[in-house]
């Protein structure tokens, strides 16, 4: 079930270096939220703070709270692995497990987390996930083949299906189509619009037109002279791209800097 994601004064560090400061924002369920901003503004750091992936980096830490529904991701008893099971993530480069078949890529998450049911149930889960990722028809006759044999766009959809197989409430996407050709990229966009019905989606993208096309809400992040990323403006995408409130947002989306 799609749940809201609420960041409450989230800051993140790499060692002593503060990367993002006091980000507070609520990302609505069943909506696509895009995070845009120049390189180094902390978009990915913020995204990786949402599912506690940031803390995997040695010396990295996060302050503040992230609420997914009514659960605090950084709550005392919260297990990071469980958090990540409920918050799927897709990365810039398609990264299917290289030694696994298409089928096993999708089944890996449920199996590793002890959710593997009977063979028939797993078959259904794999099919359902691949259908959700709009990939089923293209791969149903070659499920046992290596996922790495697929095209880049297909591999990325395998990764999306793999995330969906865990039945997450939230899907985080870090530049999911920047390594793909335009057609594969449009397919991913179309897919995200469909998945909106079931998930809360947060996408980091350098492609502003992509944000304009698919996001309901857009957040603009920027690092100031101290190189610490902040959320400059957040609002409805149509407003952000036609009449932003902050002059820095205006300057960025019109290509005056970046």
């Amino acid at each position: 079930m799609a749940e809201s994601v609420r960041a409450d004064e989230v800051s993140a560090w790499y060692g002593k270096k503060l990367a993002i400061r006091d980000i507070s924002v609520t990302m609505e369920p069943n909506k696509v939220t895009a995070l845009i901003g120049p390189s180094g503004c902390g978009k990915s750091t913020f995204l990786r703070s949402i599912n506690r992936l940031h803390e995997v980096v040695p010396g990295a830490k996060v302050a503040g709270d992230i609420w997914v529904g009514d659960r605090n991701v950084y709550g005392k008893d919260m297990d990071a692995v469980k958090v990540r099971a409920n918050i799927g993530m897709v990365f810039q480069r398609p990264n299917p497990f290289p030694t696994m078949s298409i089928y096993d890529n999708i089944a890996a998450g449920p199996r590793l987390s002890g959710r593997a049911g009977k063979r028939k149930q797993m078959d259904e889960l794999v099919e359902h996930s691949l259908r959700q990722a709009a990939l089923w028809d293209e791969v149903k006759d070659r499920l046992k083949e290596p996922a790495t044999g697929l095209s880049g766009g297909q591999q990325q959809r395998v990764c999306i299906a793999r995330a969906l197989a865990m039945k997450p409430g939230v899907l985080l996407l870090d530049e999911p189509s920047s390594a793909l050709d335009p057609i594969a990229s449009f397919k991913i966009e179309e897919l995200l619009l469909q998945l909106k019905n079931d998930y809360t989606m947060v996408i980091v993208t350098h492609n502003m037109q992509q944000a304009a096309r698919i996001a309901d809400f857009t957040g603009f992040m920027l690092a100031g002279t101290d190189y610490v990323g902040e959320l400059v403006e957040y609002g409805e995408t149509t407003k952000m791209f036609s009449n932003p409130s902050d002059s820095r947002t205006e300057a960025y989306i019109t290509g005056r800097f970046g």
Partner: protein
Amino acid sequence: MGQGAAAIREHYLRQLTELDQAVQHMGDAVLETMRSSLDTLDRMDVARAKELVENDNVIDRMRHSIEERAFTLIATQQPAASDLRLVMAASTVATELERIGDYCSGIAKIVLIMAAEPEGGSTAGIHRMAAITDNLLTRALEAFKARDIDVAAAVWMNDDEVDDLYHDVFQEQIEEMAAHKSTVRRGTYMLWVAHNVERMADRVTNIAESVAFVVTGDVAAFRDRLEMESVPG
């Protein structure tokens, strides 16, 4: 904030500036044509009227050129925010200016027909309408150039004056035609002229609205403003 704007999208910014200037240039040309057409009426200058009718396609071409620039910018540069608003407004303003040009050409055509008619009748009302419309267009173009929403708002409000005058001129001409049958033909032509001027002023208010759109991003900025002001308390 990184590099200066010019360093990043120099070509794009130049395209935007050229579009902006093309609209201003067309505005100046249409204002000049408006003055000429009314002057031609004043002096019943048939030769000049012919010229104006023939030159209408120059204004049409300016509109097409602006639309092409706007289209190219959208297709190739994906303008956003105030840039996008300018591109949209440039296209709208060009259309409105071109229509004003058509009304000028219409007046010149009436001059050509009227030249055969005996002189007489009052043109004072039409002159007042023309003077106000001239002033409105001049200020609307200034507002576009300076992105001045207050000047644009004043233009938008002043259109009523032209409408009121048009009503007076209409009455005046009808009464004169009723009293002197010999003036019916000429009076009818004058009504056409008055109608053309009234339509020009309407088009000018649309230009003023476009200025408001560029500045505020609100397509109905003046109506919103009017409603705000009319809320008691």
